């Protein structure tokens, strides 16, 4: 499998983009064409991501499959794409999650525009994960907002208009500040080195911006990512957006869009401004840890099942932020791994909640009872996914959380101690919800709850398989993530001027 010159990364972005246009142009008289075309496009994209995964050179640290074409030459803006261990699995997750989201739930109306928006969303997300040019990244980052806004506003639940507006304005405000940060970064870099460029790799490797300026710039970027992740106290858009979004919208929002924020921290925060990220690490560690506990406590209090899962996202993303800012190999690797795992488990949870909401037309936990008696397979699937979200060993959630906690304990001891408590809280709210919804005797309304259909089972199957596989044998993932993480951590060490505590290797003693 020698390195082919097929521009796979550009193809990854262009395929769903073109697909969106094709679906939008499909004739109105043939609505039955929409879904097959969309599925074809998303499955083709998924196949491309799998090919990317297979073709990825394990053990290589730098960016692979790099494409670079000049776009706006006078400003040094180029179509610069690349993938490394950190973004690889996020891209694969995106590729896999989108067809599943499409299959999981059908829109009640206007399937054509719904599908077109989803495909445009996919193009935007893939573009964001693959960009190595600041301007290009910003373009894709903003593009992601528009389809999500329309998906929530057009196909969501009762309070959708408020939720979609809040989502759009919050995220846009963060990116507005990031845009100024981007320009200032480029301007300062140009002042020092003489070349105007938006290229991330160039700016990161030259590290020519003064310390003070870099700290401000890091904050500008961090604001946008903090809204996306979301970090307390900028998280208030999330519960509404997740709850009011249609099922596919929630799956994609939680599964993929939140990762844009944490990925941004790694790729643009740590990589571009290593010293500043080290300087501000205590702040972000604190915010992340507060998020873990606060998100979990809020989740416990929820009466709406979907809102409970939304708050659990806040809690889980807190772990990822903790891992990112602890700067050890294991913690960052755990963070990246957890990004993928969270995408799979929370995506699965939202799909299941969507199924419940479709059948019973309610998401209130108090209205649901004893579903296990009438739908045992459904209950079993839900319980497995819930366990994965809790972090039960043997399932994927455990690996990520474990690595994060172990890695962070070295450098961020007391934060980790508090965060570990969050694991218990996760068990609390999820198991309590499972108990209330599935255990006990079903009443009249719940007795008619239909079992998991074959189609739904097929949708859940790949997610379940991933949950188990990544939990039992995460080595292939870790092998590919680790080299890039190592390079990033070394980069931070070098410029931030600190040394990682050395972990004793197994077998060193006696």
């Amino acid at each position, binding site marked *: 499998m020698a390195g082919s010159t097929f521009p796979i990364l550009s193809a990854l972005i262009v395929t769903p983009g073109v697909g969106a246009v094709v679906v939008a142009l499909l004739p109105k008289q043939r609505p039955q064409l929409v879904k097959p075309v969309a599925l074809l496009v998303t499955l083709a994209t998924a196949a491309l991501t799998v090919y990317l995964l297979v073709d990825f050179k394990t053990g290589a640290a730098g960016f692979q499959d790099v494409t670079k074409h000049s*776009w*706006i030459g006078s400003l040094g803006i180029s179509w610069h794409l690349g993938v490394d261990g950190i973004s690889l699995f996020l891209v694969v997750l995106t590729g896999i999650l989108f067809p599943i989201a499409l299959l999981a739930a059908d829109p009640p109306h206007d399937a054509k525009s719904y599908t077109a928006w989803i495909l445009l969303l996919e193009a935007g997300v893939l573009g964001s994960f693959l960009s190595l040019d600041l301007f290009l990244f910003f373009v894709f980052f903003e593009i992601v907002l528009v389809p999500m806004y329309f998906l929530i506003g057009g196909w969501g639940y009762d309070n959708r208009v408020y939720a979609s507006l809040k989502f759009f304005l919050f995220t846009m405000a963060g990116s507005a*500040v990031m845009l100024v940060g981007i*320009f200032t970064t480029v301007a300062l870099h140009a002042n020092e080195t003489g070349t105007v460029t938006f290229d991330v790799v160039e700016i990161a490797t030259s590290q020519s911006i003064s310390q003070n300026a870099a700290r401000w710039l890091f904050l500008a970027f961090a604001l946008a990512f903090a809204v996306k992740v979301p970090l307390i106290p900028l998280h208030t858009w999330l519960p509404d957006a997740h709850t009011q979004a249609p099922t596919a919208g929630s799956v994609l929002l939680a599964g993929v869009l939140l990762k844009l924020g944490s990925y941004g921290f790694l790729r643009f925060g740590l990589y571009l401004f290593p010293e500043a990220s080290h300087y501000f690490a205590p702040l972000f560690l604190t915010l992340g840890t507060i998020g873990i506990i606060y998100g979990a406590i809020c989740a416990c209090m929820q009466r709406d099942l979907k809102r409970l899962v939304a708050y659990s996202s806040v809690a889980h993303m807190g772990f990822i932020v903790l891992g990112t800012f602890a700067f050890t190999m294991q913690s960052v690797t755990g963070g990246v791994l957890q990004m993928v795992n969270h995408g799979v488990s929370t995506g699965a949870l939202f799909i299941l909640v969507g199924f419940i909401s479709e059948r019973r037309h309610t998401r209130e936990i108090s209205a649901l009872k004893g579903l296990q008696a009438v739908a045992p397979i459904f209950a079993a699937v839900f319980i497995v996914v819930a366990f994965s979200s809790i972090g039960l060993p043997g399932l994927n959630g455990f690996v990520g959380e474990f690595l994060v906690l172990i890695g962070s304990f070295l450098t961020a001891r007391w934060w980790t101690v508090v965060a570990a408590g969050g694991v218990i809280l996760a068990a609390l709210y999820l198991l309590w919800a499972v108990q209330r919804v599935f255990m006990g005797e079903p009443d009249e309304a719940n007795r008619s709850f239909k079992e998991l259909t074959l189609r739904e089972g097929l949708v859940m199957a790949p997610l379940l398989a991933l949950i188990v596989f990544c939990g039992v044998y995460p080595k292939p993932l870790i092998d590919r993530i680790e080299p890039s993480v190592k390079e990033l951590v070394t980069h931070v060490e070098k410029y931030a001027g600190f040394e990682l505590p050395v972990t004793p290797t197994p077998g060193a003693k006696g």
Partner: protein
Amino acid sequence: MVVAALVPRGWPKGGYAVVTATLAGAAMVMSVFNWRDVQDHGAQSLVGGAIALDGFSVFITVVICAAVIMTALIADDFLRREGQDGCELYALMLMAAAGGIVMGSANDLIVLFLGLETLSIALYVMAASNPKRLQSQESAIKYFILGGFSSAFFLYGVALVYGATGSTSLPKIMDFLATTNLLNERLLLAGMALLMVGFGFKVAAAPFHIWVPDVYQGAPTPVTSFMASVGKVAAFAALLRVFVVALGQYESDWRPLLWVLAVLTLLVGSVLAVVQTDVKRMLAYSSISHAGFILVGVQAANAKGVAGSLFYLLTYAFLVAGTFAVVTVVVGPGDSQTGLDAFRGLARRRPSLALALTVLLLAQAGVPLTAGFDAKFEVIVAAVDAKSYVLAVIAMLCSVIAAFVYLRITVSMYSTDGEVPAKRLRVPIGAATAVTIAVTFTLVVGFFPSNLIDLARDAVPVIVSGS
């Protein structure tokens, strides 16, 4: 108009619009030749030093002509719908455009004033051009009175500058300030401030913006489109030429003033737009916030700032023309239904029109891959280059506030509540063409902005002394 008076009644339908568009188109084509000329031979000064021919004036001419074409397309069916088919509006448009072009190319303050008055008087009459609507008359009177005041301020400012520098000719002013150290600067500073007031009124900068919402709302919609595009372009062109180039020496004096104006304008425009219920008023306030953005570019006072402002003016002209084209179609005869409810469910009645308006509104909000984003980008880059970081952040935050307004209109269009009016919405071919041009421009420039950005960079104003 003379031609129309001579030809007997019974011009073919849309004849006036076609003639107007053709004239403007011809002007644009000739401008291309002028551009070549300027690139080869450098800037020149014509008419005894009164008019400058440089890249800047050619650029402004092209933008104004484009705006005239777009407005002619919109006005065509509008006038027929209102029962006012006639050549007056077109003649006034061409006169106003001529005034605007003179403003953009003026090399002398008095000539600039001539252009300003020609433009303004034509606009006053255009605003009053719907005799059946009381609001139209009211808006014209308001505009006239306030405009008269501001022209008086402007003229007084010209007089003071003349007193301080001994000339009204821009090249002479520039040379004088470059070579002489003024002992008593008060005269000049007062003159500059008064000039700023005069310009501020015309470009709708706060706190001189009070006339904008009322006039934009009252005037017939195609006229609003014309005012928003040509009025601003001409006024900004003059502002750039006078302040950045001629009074460039005194940068440190007028830049802080512009900083305050820009911030006020941005805040007023975005925040007050949010509380409006009438779409035309919303768009009026949004045009105030766009003026604030362009002021950010002017405040940067460097070549990038001028280029950014020019590029913004160009994209803004197309965006506003397209937006108002759709508004003209939707508000119905007599500009009666201008509330947000008029747009409710537009996506079901006319999906392509709704989609076009969505693209244009998102472009105004500054979403990437549209021309609007590139325009904001250029202006913010200029501000960052001039180290006005706080201004850049305020500008971006105001764009988020303004985005709310555009989103509200979009939400209303796509909402599925309420019943859809049974009557099919008529979209005349003129308006449809204008909207298509605007959307195409927005998306094409959004994806490939380099050419236009480079053109704007080359259109830097140069002051050349007269022969």
